[in-house]
Every structure is written in C-alpha cells, then in structure tokens.
C-alpha cells in the first residue's frame, strides 16, 4: 500500500503515481482539503482510498479503478467515467457522473442537481436525495435514488432507466412512470446488493422515456 499526503505531494504527482499503478495496487490519499481533479484518468484496476472532502472533478474519466472517497465530493464527480467503481460516503455536488459511459457510482449521501446528466451507460446509486434536473437527456444506464428527487427528473430522457424509492417532486418533459416488471426488479436488486443499499425492491417505482420527443410531430410545427 502506498500512502500519499497532499500536504507534501502535488495533485499532478498524485495523479501520475495513480495512473502508473498496476492492477491490484493499493493507494491511500490524505489531506485532500477540497482540492480539484484528484484521482483522474486512471486506467487500471488499482484501489484508491481518499480520506477527506474533495473538490471539482474527482475520479473523472475513470476506467477500471476502484475509488473510495471518505467524505463529500464537489461538482463533476466521476464525470465521463468509463468503467470501475467510485463510491463517496458523504454527499456529491452538481452533475455527478455526467456523460459517464459505464461503471458504478455509489453516493451514500445526497446528490445535488443534474446528477447523471447525459449519462451514457453508467449505473448510479444514490443513498439519499437527489437535486433538480437529474438524468437530463440521459441516454442509457441506470439511476437509482433511495430518497426523494428534485424538480424535472429525467427531462428529455432517452433510454436510461430511473428507479426512485421516495417522492418525485416533478417529472421533466417526456418522462413518465412505467411498469415495474420482473426484469426491472432483478436489475434493481442486483444494483442495490452491489452498492450495499439495504432497501426493498418493492418500495421503488420506475420512470423512463415516453418516447414522444423521438420524432418530429407535425401538429407541433406552430411551436417553432
């Protein structure tokens, strides 16, 4: 295990060390004091434990690595993640996992606005509540919210699946509640188990695209 103290190392040194790690290597990062762009661009199966709150863009572009943040995360957590797992024990700020293609992001606390905006295949599990405009234009992947959601959930959503246990403040344009079939229950159960969230699948509702925005509707030509 390699310990890196950010009072002594620069962020660039940290990222270079993590990026050159080999599969199975373990790293512990201390004294983060809200610094930006920690543990970004990792491409191998390293394990990184970050102790403390982090600033913007932590774990961005992650591939394969397993990153645990013991604290809160600033805006842009796991942005454009490709694979691997990122877990934050506290809350995450705006646009967590934006445009992410794959992997699993677990936020044990609350997520702020625009979580999963334009997500393209990532799985996101939020233990608490989630802010407004989450899953905006979400293309594929799964967003699981164990608490309540803010306004305009899933606005202009494509084929991403959204599961919510609590109250939905409002749904965005073209986002509707959908039937929870067996395959959805199974998928949700797997994600809850994987992310260590102890909730019953039966308590969740499913939301997704009404697919009304997919094609131009000639009756709405006056709107343009």
């Amino acid at each position, binding site marked *: 295990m390699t310990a890196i103290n950010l009072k002594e190392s620069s962020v660039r040194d940290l990222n270079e060390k993590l990026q050159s790690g080999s599969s199975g290597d373990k790293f512990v990062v201390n004294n983060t004091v809200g610094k930006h762009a920690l543990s970004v661009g990792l491409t191998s199966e390293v394990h990184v434990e970050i102790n403390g709150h982090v600033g913007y863009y932590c774990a961005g572009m992650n591939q394969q690595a397993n990153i645990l943040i013991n604290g*809160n995360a600033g805006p842009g957590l796991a942005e454009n993640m490709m694979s691997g797992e990122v877990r934050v024990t506290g809350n995450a*700020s705006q646009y967590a996992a934006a445009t992410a293609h794959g992997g699993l992001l677990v936020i044990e606390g609350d997520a702020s*606005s625009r979580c999963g905006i334009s997500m393209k295949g990532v799985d996101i599990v939020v233990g608490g509540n989630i802010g407004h*405009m989450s899953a905006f234009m979400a293309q594929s992947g799964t967003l699981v919210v164990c608490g309540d959601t803010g306004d305009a959930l899933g606005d202009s959503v494509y084929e991403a699946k959204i599961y919510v246990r609590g109250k939905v403040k409002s749904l965005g344009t073209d986002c509707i509640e959908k039937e929870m079939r067996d395959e959805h229950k199974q998928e949700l159960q797997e994600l809850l188990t994987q992310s260590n969230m102890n909730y019953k699948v039966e308590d969740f509702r499913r939301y997704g695209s009404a697919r009304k925005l997919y094609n131009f509707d000639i009756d709405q030509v006056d709107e343009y």
Partner: protein
Amino acid sequence: MCGIVGLFIKNPALEAELGALVAPMLSEMTERGPDSAGMAVYRDPNDKGCKVTVLAPKLDFDWASFEKSVKSHFSLKKFTVTQNHAVLSLGNALDEVEEWLGLNWSDLSVTSAGTNIEIFKGKGNPADFIEQFDIKNMTGTHALGHTRMATESAITTEHSHPFSTGQDLCLVHNGSLSNHNRLRETLKREGVKFKTDNDSEVAAGYLSWRLSEGDDLDEALNHAIEDLDGFYTFAIGTKDGFAVMRDPIGCKPAIMAETDDWAAMSSEYRAIATLPGAENARIWEPEPTQIYSWKRS
C-alpha cells in the same frame, strides 16, 4: 467565474482572529478571481453616529486636507487611512455627512455607510490585497469577501465587489446577469444611482431600491428572483450577520458549513477547509432560491 467567502463568528473569543481566519479563505479563491478582491468587515460599532468608508481616485490623495475639512464641519471621532480608502467614524447623522461629502468631495466615492460596516477593495491579485489592507490583523464579528474574474465589465477598483446596498448592507456576487442594462435604466428612473456599468452593481442597486420601498431583506431577495435574469450566488452582509441565495437553476456553486465557533459560506469547500475544525463541520449545499441567513442573537 468569481469566488465568494463569508465568515460569521459565533464564539466571541474568535472575533479577534476574524481577519486571520478569513484571509486564507479569500486567498484560496484566487484562481476563481485573480482580477481584483474586496472585503466587507463588520466591527467597532459607532451606534451614536455613523461610519463611512470613502474611496479616493488615486493613492497619493491629500487625506490631511480632507481630514481637516471634515473636522471643521463634523465631530470626527476616528479617521483611519489604508491605501486609497479611509474609514470615518463621526458623531453626526449619516444623511448630513453623505450630502456634504457629495457636495464638497465629489471625487471621493462612498463605498460603505452605516454604523458597523467597512468596505475595502482593490484591483489586482487577492494576495496583494490581503497584504496591502492588512486583512490578517482585522478584528470583527463577520466578514464577506470576493475575488473577481471579470466577464461583464472592466477591471477597476470601482467595479470590484462588495457593493454597498444600503446602511450596513453589502452584496457580493458570483455569476452574470443578462438583463442588467435594461434593469439599470429602470432603476435610474426610480432614483437609484450607479457608479459603473457593472452587472453586480445593478443587483446591489435593485436590492437597495426594494429595501427603500419597504421590503425586508427576505422580501427584497424574493423580488430579485422575479426580476433578475441570469446566474447568481449572492452573499449579502447585514449589520448582524449575512444571507446567501442562489438562482433558481442553482447554476453557480456555493457551499455552507457550521461549527459551534463559526458559520461560513464559500464558492468551494477548499476555502472552508482552511478554518479550524472544518473537517468535522456540518456541511451542506444551499438549495436554489432558498434564503439562508445567520444573525447575531
């Protein structure tokens, strides 16, 4: 992009360290605003008269003549010059003082007025500002600071934040307003005066106008949500504390934290991380359009 910091002391023993605590916060926000910096500090109340901060157009301003002139008209209790700023504590009514200043010393601009507030600001790197104004040695009950990255108007000391919005009130802003030109014209017709073409000054002028129309601070901010178009996180300094509000989309960042000793807000956590006990503070992100305020009880 700009950086905002606010610190409110809850434990009176820490009031002596206000400047020492808030200076590293401001410094940490340099990358968000390297163009200019400013700070409003609340201290040494002059309840039986008034306190004003004036800003001179140049560093070698003839403060001695000014002091003499003030003394011949008013009871000047305290006069402190720092760089191109001077703080005057007087035994007279504010209206009288402001009118006289406008008539006799029109090249000076009043940057703050009230009984507790003092506002300092300067063009250039926040580190230089902290040094030049000896921020680290400031005492007081609370302070609001701003580092500016100009997007809408020129980089001058006059364009820098905080902006005064009335007696013991000031505003710092992170964001940009898109309807500020039209709103400025409307407010001018209502009698609000502007010193620059800065968009944040319009927000400050708007709040001053609403407050003069009888709104309390919460009402004025709720009206601002209706009438201001754009992105904003506002922090408003008041005599007893400060308030924070974000725009309806929550576009601009803000983070708040509280311990038994202090309450703080900033654009980013890294500024709060400089405070003692930050790692165990209660930390949260303010919801859009909700007004958060702290007040001395």
